[in-house]
């Protein structure tokens, strides 16, 4: 299968000497839903900026569906739809003008652009707002407008730089459904996000970038399998007996909250049995933190410790 993106030795040094990318190697398969994660300033937006030709690279090679960014830039651009982090449309234009104009820049004739505008604006719940000026839209609508705008030329690769930042949960989930749908239709998606739950739910592959280097690039499954212990928060009914669990490490937070660290292979059955024997009723249960979040923090910390060790 062709790679949607192939990056080799990508470097970017900004004026002033700041080295944002220090030799990034990355491959994203066609049809994939890929998460590019990293702390602030890790190099995610620079990488995306270079792929979408908004940032000039210092060195390295970028190929999009086999087209070279240096020699076939128009072919590269034609295949990419970009949803940037910040609202970057003309706030004084109407929703319809924004999307139709964007299609025009890609050579889509006006009549066809209007048909596609109706299709995507309807799917994203913005068709009723087509004649409204962009500045009058809510934050969530503006985010959806940027997605619609990026899709009007029907790209094979959609890059989303924190698309759900500041979006409420309900809307975020409807955007997830939409993105999953277009991914199933064959559009490769690269996503950066600070909501790690989002990456875990949506993406099949994941890359973690820190200080300009890719420190992890694997499938979501194999990454999550690295987690041996999960922490659960149990809401328990008030009881005269203090909970005593021997099969797992526990912490009593208050009268009705118990935290349990469970080794994956051991499971929760024994914990429930012990609590049941003591007459303690478990009312509900949830993960203490997002699983990916724990891994992400561990990997980034580990990467930094390794570098410091090498330096020392």
């Amino acid at each position: 299968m062709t790679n949607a993106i192939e990056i080799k030795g990508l470097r970017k040094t900004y004026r002033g000497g700041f080295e944002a990318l220090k030799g990034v190697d990355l491959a994203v398969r066609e049809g994939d839903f890929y998460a590019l994660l990293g702390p602030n300033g890790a190099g995610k937006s620079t990488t995306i900026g270079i792929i979408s030709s908004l940032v000039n690279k210092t060195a390295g090679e970028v190929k999009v569906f086999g087209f070279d960014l240096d020699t076939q830039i128009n072919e590269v651009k034609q295949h990419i739809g970009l949803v940037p982090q910040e609202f970057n449309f003309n706030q004084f234009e109407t929703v319809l003008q924004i999307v139709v104009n964007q299609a025009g820049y890609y050579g889509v004739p006006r009549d066809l652009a209007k048909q596609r505008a109706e299709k995507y604006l309807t799917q994203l719940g913005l068709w009723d707002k087509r004649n409204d000026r962009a500045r009058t839209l809510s934050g969530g609508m503006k985010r959806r407008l940027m997605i619609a705008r990026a899709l009007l030329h029907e790209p094979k690769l959609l890059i989303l730089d924190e698309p759900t930042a500041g979006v409420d949960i309900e809307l975020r989930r409807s955007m997830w459904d939409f993105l999953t749908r277009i991914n199933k239709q064959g559009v490769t998606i690269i996503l950066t996000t600070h909501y790690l739950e989002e990456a875990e739910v949506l993406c099949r592959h994941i890359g973690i970038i820190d200080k300009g280097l890719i420190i992890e690039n694997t499938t979501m499954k194999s990454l999550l399998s690295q987690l041996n212990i999960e922490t659960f928060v149990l809401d328990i009914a008030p009881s005269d007996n203090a909970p005593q669990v021997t099969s797992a490490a526990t912490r009593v937070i208050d009268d009705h909250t118990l935290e349990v660290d469970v080794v994956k292979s051991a499971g929760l059955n024994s914990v429930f049995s012990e609590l049941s024997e003591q007459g303690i009723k478990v009312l509900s249960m949830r993960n203490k933190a997002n699983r990916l979040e724990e891994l992400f923090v561990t990997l980034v910390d580990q990467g930094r410790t390794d570098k410091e060790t090498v330096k020392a």
Partner: protein
Amino acid sequence: MKNPIHFTALKTIWIKECTRFLRIWVQTLVPPAITMTLYFIIFGSLIGSRIGEMGGVSYMEFIVPGLIMMSVITNAYSNVASSFFSAKFQRNLEEMLVAPVSNITIILGYVGGGVARALLVAIIVTLVSGFFVDLAIQSFAMIILTVLLTATLFALGGLLNAMFAKTFDDISIIPTFVLTPLTYLGGVFYSITLLPDFWQAVSQFNPIIYMVNGFRYGFIGVSDIAPATALGVLLIFNIGFFVLAWWLLKRGTGTRT
């Protein structure tokens, strides 16, 4: 521009630019009409009647082409400077930069918008001048060529200014400190033959002299500069500005990181 993608993109940018200045017509089309009416009344009718003839025609007839050209210059320049800088400032220029729009298409689209506004303003000012003077036309071709080349040149100038500009102040510095003095000293209100020899020679370095005189020649058939020289100078400046704008866009000066 054979590639249909580039043609559609060019059409899109041009329509977008025209829609922009037409949407804010109170700011873009009305002020030049009012300003030029005041010029016609004060300099043409009130003061002009005391000056008498200049270049073999009434003072009013003499200044009308210059005043039309003044509107063309300021409107072509400010349209592109403010539109391109706003697009940079609001970052919606990125819409074009991520798309397969060539740098030449971007230049032609923005310049085309500036030229459209300048021509529309020129028509409005010419119509207003009809209330004050009967304009004769000596060379229609000269009028069209000079107005087109001048509008294009200053639209390119506005684009270059916007590329380098970092704040809104930066797009008003050149019009205030360079464009306005050059325009007022560019033979709009007087014939340079009235100046002492030294200042006549200095005036030859003011490019606006060539535009105003070329344009005036089209109307009254009188010019301080040979029409061919005026067109030649305009053409050279246009080519120079176009190449510079293309090179700067290619480098990403002021547009890419």
